[in-house]
């Protein structure tokens, strides 16, 4: 687990207080104050919260997820040609702290909220699978690798995927941990998707995340252990000398990783829904990546030359791998 995970306050919904999973999580934090609440969302969605203040000491919320469990993928997310594309969230909030993370536009809270009712997700997903195969992305609103000790979600999803070959699962991560790969044995339909950025972008904007070299080591280990691996060079962020930075990144990837064994690569420059971007600008006045003068196109804030950037990135990658393996957003439409 991420070393910054040390919650001074844990809010627990009364109805799940005696659930063994809740007990298991609470046992890890004997010094935390445990506060019983009616709904976790009452804490998570409080008005006027300050993300910047809260991130100095995060809280944990344990809840049961009600209502919609699976959402249709947004057009600005990669679907990899899947005809049925969903995402789900079994945890919201992240122990990592990427300045550009869309969570900061959606939610005001820096807390981590974990939903423990995994069985409800599986029940509903079995219903969805009756209508045919689907692609499901698991970690748009958290990094599940970073919290596996608490949630056990990765193990549970891997077991479910093993029994449901019609399901293609994508687990995105910036984590460098390598101890979870065994649970993906005989799960070619589970894709471990590593987000990789130049070290300068990591240092500037992806706080508390592992370095590029550690992530690359994790990719190599994942491949060695037979995992299906996707690389996500997404979001591409314009920093000073960004072209050189991304050229160096792809060179390094070519040198360090057997790219022929990578399932595919997704690319995409920074994009954010306009209302989220507006909120993030207000909440984070000191973040260069948030304050960049983006242009608005079809309701999204994008670089004015985003098409050229994506084309350029594609060209760069085509030096190293077959073009069929490279997915930009336009390919996914």
């Amino acid at each position, binding site marked *: 687990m991420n070393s910054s995970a040390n919650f001074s306050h844990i*809010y627990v919904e009364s109805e799940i207080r005696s659930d063994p999973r809740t007990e298991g999580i609470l046992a890890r934090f004997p010094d935390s104050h445990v506060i019983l609440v009616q709904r976790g969302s009452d804490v998570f969605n409080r008005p006027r919260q300050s993300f910047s203040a809260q991130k100095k000491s995060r809280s944990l919320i344990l809840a049961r997820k009600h209502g919609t469990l699976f959402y249709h993928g947004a057009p600005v997310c990669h679907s990899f040609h899947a005809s049925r594309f969903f995402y789900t969230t079994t945890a919201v909030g992240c122990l990592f702290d990427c300045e550009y993370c869309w969570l900061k536009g959606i939610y005001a809270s820096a807390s981590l909220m974990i939903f423990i009712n995994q069985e409800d997700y599986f029940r509903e997903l079995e219903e969805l699978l009756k209508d045919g195969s689907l692609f499901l992305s698991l970690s748009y609103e958290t990094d599940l690798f970073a919290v596996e000790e608490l949630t056990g979600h990765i193990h549970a999803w891997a077991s479910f995927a093993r029994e449901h070959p019609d399901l293609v699962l994508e687990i995105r991560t910036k984590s460098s941990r390598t101890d979870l790969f065994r649970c993906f044995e005989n799960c070619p339909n589970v894709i471990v998707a590593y987000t990789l950025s130049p070290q300068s972008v990591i240092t500037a904007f992806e706080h508390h995340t592992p370095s590029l070299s550690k992530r690359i080591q994790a990719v190599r280990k994942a491949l060695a252990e037979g995992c299906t691996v996707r690389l996500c060079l997404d979001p591409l962020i314009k920093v000073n000398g960004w072209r050189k930075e991304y050229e160096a990144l792809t060179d390094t990837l070519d040198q360090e990783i057997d790219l022929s064994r990578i399932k595919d690569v997704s690319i995409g420059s920074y994009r954010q829904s306009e209302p989220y971007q507006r909120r993030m600008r207000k909440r984070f006045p000191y973040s*260069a990546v948030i304050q960049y*003068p983006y242009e608005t196109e079809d309701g999204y804030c994008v670089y004015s030359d985003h098409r050229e950037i994506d084309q350029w990135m594609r060209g760069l990658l085509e030096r190293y791998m077959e073009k069929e393996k490279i997915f930009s957003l336009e390919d996914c439409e």
Partner: protein
Amino acid sequence: MIFLFTALYAEAKPLIEHWHLKRKEGPIQQFENGEITLTVTGTGPIAAASVGGAVLGKNPRHADDFLISAGICAGLSHQKKGSIVLIHQLIDQNSGRAFYPDIIFTSLKREETLFTGSRVWNRESSVADHGLYDMEGAALFEAGSLFLSPHQMRFLKTVSDTGDTLVTPQEVSGLMKELIPSLEAEIEAMRRQCAKEEEVLIENEEETADLFQASLTMRRQIHQLLLYCTLAGTDWKAVIQQKIKQGLLPAENRSEGKKRLEEIRHELIG
């Protein structure tokens, strides 16, 4: 500004003496020293919410302002008299609504839930059966939430009784005097918790925009561009100076200004 609140004058008295606070003119009982404003709300949730709202609504608010409510309460779980407790959950007994202040830094170990009711606690009629009980906390939090973030509010209680015994004003003041060291430590914790980040100043923004004969929309674009460059450490001033040297700025008119702005934008952010 530190906004201190108590319900009773007997609670406020030792604090007024400790910080040498001076009575402020006006219908609300307030005492201040330039840094701290102490308000006595009166007893009960309506008094707490209305006075709290009036005080916070009238004053200009800053990111580093915070509210601390300090006072006596009943301990419903046999807490010892004089126990000092930080509140992490406030429940309005009438509506059932719960409120949660953010506790990011604190010097106190002991935390509990505070129930707030509109009557003196009564074993038979109260839903509160554990934690602490008072008649103002949740109401003050709810009123404060209109103006402040959850990390800008803190509730500190000292247990005076078990809910069904009477306490004299002298006892109340005595307990509050003992609370002062914890209150001082919590003020320090709140200073850290509510510390303002340094502001980013864009030098000569107005004068720069004038060089482009900028409209309001252009001024907004220039602001965003210069803010980004300042944050990213890009030397935008050198680029502007160069344009001035080349005689390309100031622009003759707005349409030329637009053209220059596009060029400069391209040079700065590619």
